[in-house]
């Protein structure tokens, strides 16, 4: 092992140098290219939606946990009803926001479908 190990390190270092140079070249070529501008902007627009989806998942989790704690006897019926109502109201609000946010996408999709259908007669 002691005989081979230095060579392993040398080969590893050589491969890492190649990887570093390759990555750097890619980085520089991408930095001076404008092709990705549109794609990157489109990616950003989906982030707001992702935030709402995250919030929805958290609220669902919370509703489920509250129900679990109620079933396990940690929450009284009255407290459970009150908290559950609040959480569901928040979740409905988030679903509503998601629907509003999906509006332009839906309109665009519907327009594309209509266009395609009219093209096909």
């Amino acid at each position, binding site marked *: 092992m002691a005989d081979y190990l230095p060579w392993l390190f040398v080969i590893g270092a050589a491969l890492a140098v190649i990887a570093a140079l390759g990555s750097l070249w890619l980085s520089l070529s991408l930095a001076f290219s404008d092709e990705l501008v549109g794609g990157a902007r489109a990616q950003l627009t989906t982030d707001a939606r992702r935030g709402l989806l995250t919030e929805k998942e958290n609220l669902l989790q919370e509703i489920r946990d509250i129900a679990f704690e109620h079933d396990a006897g940690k929450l009284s019926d009255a407290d459970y009803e009150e908290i559950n109502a609040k959480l569901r109201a928040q979740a409905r*609000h988030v679903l509503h926001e998601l629907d509003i946010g999906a509006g332009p996408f839906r309109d665009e999709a519907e327009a594309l479908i209509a266009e395609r259908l009219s093209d096909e007669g």
Partner: protein
Amino acid sequence: MPALDIPFFGTLVLCLILISASYTMAVAMGAGQGRPHLLPSARWGTYATCALVLVAILVLAYAFQVHDFRIRYVARYSDRSMPWWYLVTSLWGGQDGSLLWWSFLLSGYTFFAVRWLRGRYTELQPWVIATLMSILLFFAILMLFAANPFATYIRTTPGDGEGLNPLLQNYWMAIHPPVLYMGFVGWSVPFAILVAAMVTGRLGNEWVRAARLWSMIAWTFLSIGLLLGCLWSYEELGWGGYWAWDPVENASFMPWLVGTAYLHSVLIQERRQMMKVWNVFLLFLTFFLTIFGTFLTRSGLIASVHSFARSDIGQYFVWYMAFLLIAFAALMIWRLPKLKADNEIESLVSREFAFLLNNWVLLGMMVFVLIATTFPLLSQWVRGEEVTVGPGFYNKWMVPLGIVLLFLAGLGPLVAWRKATGSKLLRAMAFPIGVGLAVALLQALFGARLGYPSVVEPTEIYDTGTGTVLAWMSAIAPGVSFATCAFVLASVGQEFWRGMRVRMRKGEGAGKALVNLVSKGRRRYGGYIVHVGIVFMFIGFTGAAYDVEQESALRPGETMDIGNHVVRYDQPRMETDPNKRMIFTDMTLLDESGNEDGQVAPGKFIYRTHPQMPTTEVAIRSRPAEDVYVIMSTVDPSTQRGTFRIIIRPLVAWIWIGGLVLLFGALLGMWPTGRELLREEAPRIRRFRFSPATAVVGLAIVIATMIAWAGVASAQNDSSSSLHAGSVVINDPVERQLFGRLLCQCGDCARLPLDTCACGWADEKRIEVRERLSAGEEPTRIQESYRAQYGAAALAIPSDEGLDRALWAVPIAAMVVAIGFIVVLGRRWQRRGVAPRASTASDASEKLEYDTRLDAELDRLEES
């Protein structure tokens, strides 16, 4: 071997790291400032920088293997006789190399974090990359201008190296530093995510979710790293303990305390969108403490058994810490309006409030440790007097706080989120409290007979009222600790049972209910298992109250009695390898009937490169009930007469068992997060994909295998070492208390008290002190004359008067103020009540439609 100027090439690579990290940071900042097309470029720049760091570490590793003693670092930390594996561990054996190692681990984290971020959190990505690159940049500057691991000798190149410190030539050194560093460095990723969230103003739950997995990874590594450090200390330093409250240990413990507080507190934000400012502060503080701890130990400002040499890298850290503080304060002020809580605490009897109390204790402990660790420095600056804060101080104050924390670990799961009614809480607490009280009663009745009395001999660290109170608190601590451990175990067990019962009511069998319960709530139940691991560790810590210690001189064939054991000294023997001479003394453990119960072979190693520094290799026979810890102090080659110190350490194995349970629980808690996040990216893909959780599990398996291997090695060799060669004899509690307050002044082991230090100087001093006690001199007078002779730093614990009192008064005052603040704030929040968010979906039919969709989503969640 290729003819290459390694030192020059290594330094060149460090320069390239600096340039590449700066370039990537600039590109990433550009991407974050309205030029998103630069993001892929920043990502590839990150990969290039990480690859360059890999080149640097491989070049240094190569230099060690080929003994390139032109490089100062290689010459100082290796020699030609060292086997290849210690040449690899030498990479992190000294200051300069460990900084490169640190950068290497950081680049590893950065690589995986940036790969993981692809297609996720696009707005945060540029700033995450920029922050991680800025940290790497700092380390590159540090290496290039202050601690270059490729620096060469100006004049002659030595023919052989100085060799690695013998204490570091131990299998734990192959595991402990990398794992601990993984814990330290790991906090950089959540910190970078936090900075990104603050810069972009996206301070909702998004960053919390993004940072969750990474903070769990860092916390797990830090926890296991700390435990491996305990193992190294226990086996390698040979003083009989596993935690000495050394500044280096404290430097790792402080971020762990704050990180633990963050992991609990952030749950409140996730659930209730509260405590946003507090969580931001805790995460920043955790990262800051990793840097501060590194500064403390690397600058040489504070004396420690494993600190690095005094160097000028401290000033770089000071500037960096100042930059971090100013930048964080500016970001905080800028983003304060966005950190407003969406909800408030509805009741003081709630999970939220229990977590606040948990944070209060953890932060209180951190303040205690911080003040005690830096007190010698503060004392030197303020009044020009050097003092020492020894383990006795920490043990006395930390034990009660630790028990309160343990109690909260059992209480938290019993309390519901938002608000729990008093009657329901009492009903939930009845069983765990009953179990705790039953254990306390049983221990009070039978404990003394079994060797585990509820109350132990009180020892005072001060001759004041405070000293008396602390002594009594520590005297009853074992009983309270065991009862609290039982309470927490019962609480966790009850949680599992209650969860199972809910599922069983739906028709599932007990086994299926348990499996489904855990698999659908891995984070929650993983957390409970972590609590069980902590309880096991507390059982191990409590065992220290029942240590029995004895020292004897024996000839071959003679025996000594200790506890329920008889130990027979058989013979000495010597072995050699190219690196060292090894002198062992074979000993046999006998049970009460005289039958053989095991073999141990404590010894001494004399390294070729450090003959003046013989290491004492302890032998440990470990069982769940107790460890038999044998130290060979001296052996006379002509008469074969040996001096042995044997310590019976009850329950210590539970600390390591607890560590494994903690690791299992943490992995369980992390696992769903990885899958969940993966699914978020590609919902329908079922094929195996790499995730950070996979990496963590892989690494954990490697660590567990290495621990198991090391355990086997330990059983085979029973070896570890100490710097000391004398013996410790303590006749009565008065002696123990006094010796515990006086520090050895031999020069080699200045931080060890006389009740522990086994060097010749300490032995002579004990004889002298014993004679003075026999002559009727008061212990207080002896202590004062010791202080007058050797200075205030020769006392293990500063006095309980004047400025010294600040050592405990400041943290206690801070904790009192904090708890008052928490209660007042909680009450105010409670009075204000909570305004439900307005729902725009007010129409009844629309409400019904959304409720139907919600129910469908909940069913999907249940089935997933």
